[in-house]
């Protein structure tokens, strides 16, 4: 009896930390987009926005770790540790869990490179960080497919809100990136603005675009 109870507790822990991780990761991605767009949070200096982005991501990692470990430790269903990191080798629900492994791998890559970001080439860090836009949707699909939890009730509402918010922000960020005045076109718009008498302290169009 106690064995089943322990297993149930672990199973619940995994599900609970799973949805928490999803919420946290949603916040992390939203904050990351905010940083990229040079946005501000009311009353907070810019370094607080980046700080929050980083700290929440580390908290998210903890929750993801508990989510994975409790799922592996739980004996009701057989999920090996290997299946948590190597995609699609699980005997239980190989596809949905495989997606979880994929998003975990991507998350680890993003986190590790970010921890050493001042010591690796700038382009390398950026390239890996872009994988976040892959990590998140895969994590979402993993969540929805692995458990019926999120398909009804308040959990569904939470999931939909998070995904909608991130999707909206991501579209906004990516559109800005695609529509951004290309490097040499910035000169044209800067000249146009200057000639138009905007010879004041406002920044030229194109400033603030990450390259």
């Amino acid at each position, binding site marked *: 009896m106690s064995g089943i109870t322990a297993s149930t507790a672990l199973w619940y822990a995994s599900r609970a930390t799973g949805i928490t991780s999803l919420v946290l990761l949603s916040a992390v991605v939203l904050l990351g987009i905010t*940083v*990229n767009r*040079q946005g501000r949070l009311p009353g907070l*200096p*810019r*370094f607080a926005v*980046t*700080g929050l982005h980083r700290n929440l991501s580390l908290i998210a990692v903890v929750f993801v770790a508990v989510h994975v470990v409790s799922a592996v430790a739980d004996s009701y269903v057989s999920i090996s540790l290997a299946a948590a990191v190597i995609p699609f080798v699980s005997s239980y629900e190989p596809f949905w869990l495989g997606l979880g492994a994929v998003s975990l791998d991507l998350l680890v890559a993003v986190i590790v490179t970010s921890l050493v*970001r*001042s010591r*690796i*080439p*700038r*382009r390398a*860090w*950026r390239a890996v960080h872009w994988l976040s836009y892959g990590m998140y949707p895969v994590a979402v699909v993993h969540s929805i497919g692995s458990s019926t939890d999120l398909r009804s009730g308040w959990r569904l509402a939470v999931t939909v809100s998070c995904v909608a918010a991130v999707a909206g922000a991501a579209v906004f960020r990516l559109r800005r990136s695609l529509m951004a005045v290309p490097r040499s076109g910035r000169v044209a718009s800067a000249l146009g603005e200057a000639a138009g008498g905007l010879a004041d*302290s406002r*920044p*030229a169009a194109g*400033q*603030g*675009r*990450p*390259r």
Partner: protein
Amino acid sequence: MSEQLRVNPIACTGHGLCAELFPERVILDEWGYPVISPEPIPASLRKAARRAVTDCPALALLLSGHQRAR
């Protein structure tokens, strides 16, 4: 050994964290880009300088004497 803070002006997109984190050496110009004082950084300010380098969203700062691998 005292270091100097430098900015890669091509990578810099004017986020402005450096001025918040290291006002002793960095102020922002009227367009939001960092103006970095060329004075060397004493040991007491080294931590703030390192933080500015690590926290810059564009990774546009470097401390001379520390080679970024591009």
